[in-house]
């Protein structure tokens, strides 16, 4: 077995670091848990749940309502803001010994690494995750699970830009004709944009952003705001943001469409976690379990138009398959060490 092999390797002479990593892995291998009547009963006694999330508010509330319908008597309160603000909020609350968050869903994997390192997360492995999720979609010790896979493509307003004129690549965005016509979200507020900023800077160089900033780009906070700005017609082109909202809005009849840039589309896998000091521990487990089950994951695909890590989630036509999109490479470990540098350089370049 792979485990034994790794054990032997470690004993052979890996350093203390490898040893401790191994020790944790063995001790915390989580048991996959089903939704039992006892869990539902205990959750109903708690009666409520605080869900901190970076997902689009409308979707988060829809998810909450679906959960309330399935498990009446447990009220879900959604606390939505950009992932970087969610991270700041939880840090601020925990520093003051306020443990209000039950389940968190962020758009920046580095957050879960930090929370896990702080010992704040509760390992919990829902049955469906163990059975139907690829290994890369959950923490081996069960501290966090990828809930949805986000991409950050371009978007454009079809009333303002003809399909054939729409920019095809990041390079196209530097064309003077787009000057003053683009909107972009901010990595200090949004986890998706933290990922996309890092990936674009790594692949195209920071120099690219210097040139982009000279294009007089309108700056907003959240990756869920940029799609709405092109729907309003305030700007013609969305440089980055939640691609799923552009697709939803397009399907709702709004004049918007999506472009997958030639250089590659930035990607952010969005994990969820249960907090160890969760005030409603049973409701938290129930929600985490349900959210990664077939039913919620299908809502994610059908309603929110996002990509699901659940292998039984049925694709909904109208969205290009993830495998058919040229994606940039995600690197949460790099963001873990470079997030501050990304924010600082970004602020210097875009002046906000």
């Amino acid at each position, binding site marked *: 077995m792979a485990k034994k092999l790794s054990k032997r390797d470690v004993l052979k002479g890996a350093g203390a670091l490898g040893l401790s990593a191994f020790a944790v892995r063995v001790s915390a291998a989580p048991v996959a848990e089903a939704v039992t009547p006892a869990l539902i009963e205990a959750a109903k006694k708690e009666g409520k749940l*605080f869900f*901190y999330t970076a997902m*689009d*508010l*409308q979707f988060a*509330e*829809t998810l*909450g*309502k679906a959960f309330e319908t399935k498990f009446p008597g447990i*009220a*879900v*309160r*959604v*606390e*939505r*803001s*950009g992932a*970087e*603000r969610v*991270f*700041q*909020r939880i*840090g*601020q*609350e925990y*520093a*003051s*010994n*306020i443990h*209000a*968050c039950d389940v968190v869903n962020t758009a920046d994997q580095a957050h879960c690494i930090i929370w896990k390192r702080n010992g704040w997360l509760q390992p919990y492995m829902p049955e469906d995750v163990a059975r139907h999720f690829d290994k890369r979609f959950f923490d081996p010790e069960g501290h966090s699970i990828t809930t949805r896979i986000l991409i950050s493509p371009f978007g454009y307003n079809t009333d*303002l830009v003809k399909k054939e004129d729409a920019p095809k690549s990041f390079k196209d965005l530097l064309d003077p004709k787009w000057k003053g016509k683009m909107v972009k979200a*901010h990595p*200090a*507020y949004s986890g998706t944009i933290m990922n996309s900023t890092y990936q674009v800077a790594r692949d195209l160089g920071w120099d690219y952003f210097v040139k982009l900033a000279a294009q*007089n780009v*309108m*700056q*907003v*906070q*959240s990756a*869920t*705001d*940029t*799609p*709405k*700005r092109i*729907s*309003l*017609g*305030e*700007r013609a082109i969305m440089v980055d943001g939640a691609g799923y909202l552009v697709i939803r809005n397009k399907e709702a009849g*709004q004049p918007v469409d999506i472009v997958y840039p030639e250089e590659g589309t930035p990607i952010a896998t969005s994990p969820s976690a249960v907090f160890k000091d969760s005030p409603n521990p049973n409701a938290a487990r129930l929600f985490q379990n349900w959210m990664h089950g077939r039913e919620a994951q299908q809502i994610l695909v059908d309603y929110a138009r996002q990509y699901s890590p659940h292998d039984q989630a049925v694709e909904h036509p109208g969205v290009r398959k993830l495998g058919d999109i040229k994606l940039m490479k995600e690197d949460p470990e790099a963001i873990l060490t470079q997030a*501050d540098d990304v*924010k600082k350089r970004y*602020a*210097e370049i*875009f*002046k*906000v």
Partner: protein
Amino acid sequence: MTIVIPAAPAPPPRKYGIDFTKPVLYGFAVILCVLILLPLSWLFLYSLTDAKGALTLANFYRLFTESSFYDPLVTTFIIATSSAVICCAVAAPMGWLVARTDLPFSGVIRALVTASFVTPPFLGAIAWEVLAAPNSGLLNKIFRSVTGADQDVHLFNIYSIEGIIFVISCYTFPYVFVLVANSLDRTPGELEDASSILGGGRWYTARRVTIPLVLPALLAGALVAFLQAMTLFGSPAILALPAGFHTMTTKIWSLFQYPPKPELAAAASLPLLILTVFLLRAEHMILGRRGYSVVGGKYGQPRLIPLHGMRWAAFLICVLVLTLPVFLPYAALLNAAFSPVATTFVTFKNATMHNIYFVLFELSAASLALKNTVILGTATATIGTTIAVVIAYVTARQAVTGWRVLGFLATAPIAIPGIVLGVGLFLSYTRPPFVLYGTLWILLIAFVTIALPSAYQQLQAAFRTIHPELEDASRILGATRLRSLWEITAPLLRTGVIATWCFIFVGVMRELSAAIILFTSETKVISVLIYDLNESGDLGAIAVIGIGMLLITFAVVTAVNRIPGFGNVRFRT
């Protein structure tokens, strides 16, 4: 004037042996010190330390050498100065028209000014985004469809420094208006009559009597407008980021992003504090000892100046000006509430109830935020008014030694941007002995502190116009200071007190800057909810909540003014 008291017979022995005045007053002084000095001390301490806690001046060095700090400083100064000038230019003539002329429907004008005052600046900013965003703004759309101009052409661009100055002025000018109009309301007609009788023409009288009488109020108004514009977080938070620059307040807010840099934020807030102290001193020097006690034991109705043929023109101009802070933004919010996309004009065909349904039945944070806001509004208004009355009395009558310090302390919070006060409080009340973070108490403290300066100034102005001769008479007849305060001064102050209560309540609804630092999921307020909704661009939901918020505010203001027994009080903000 000397009052001669007959030597005999000896005064009857007092019924109440102890005068509780001093202990009560000192008690308030202590509360005030804790409220203000605690967070300020932490701020000073933090501004002089590095992230590890060692003493350093590096924070200030960075503040004045890095363009990312002094650019916002310059921007803020430009915005505050321009807003103050615009506010005075608009509010002073309007205040005069309403208070001293036979302008038709002056009550309506006052009500509209009240409406613009109670409109939260961040809500106004969002509404103006819907109206005047360069491409999607409704006004620009109308402009293009009328002139047939190209899609790229726009009339207004709210995402600019001019746009921010405009929006801030829209919701700051009521401060100046109230001060000017109230001051004119209180100026007795006899003084002007005397001038006329002695041969002074209408303009001569205005120049030599009316304007000097109202000058203190106008200067105070300019100062308040400047400080409001300088420390405002709401409007810049909505508009500055898309416009591509920072003001001091948004810069300070950005310093609390992870990893938080409170020491830099504290340093960045000190120039604002010092500037404010300097301005307050300057105001004092300009006005010097020029104070006017114009309500004594006798009172003369102000005399209205006939405008003749200009009456309706003047009325029309006032209404047109008030279209900007009131009618247009409210219309934009209504449009956004029922429209599928905020900047699409609502028609019978595309109107939707989706936003209302979403806010009422889906938005899970809404009901708690509403409850918290109402609780905090009521509590803050009651406590804040009480403290402000006492301190205004102490300073107006110089009742205890050290009254100057009290007056300064009560005014000082105006110099602290709410966001910085939020941090000061956060630093003060997240550690023993007062662990208040995560409760409504910390928000209550923040809101009371923020409300205090304007409440104090309003009430102090009210006290100044009530001549101490009335209290003196009561005290000469044997009443203690507290009793004469209660039986003589309080009834005279009733209007001012009720106005102040409303003023604070409305202020709490508007408050965003401190709340954004101090809230937790359990203690969220409506302003923070709207800010979060704005971050994700949910304009429809904002419109619905905003309209609801305005309705509550109007209901409270109207209700408080109609409580039986309070008489028919005109609310003048």
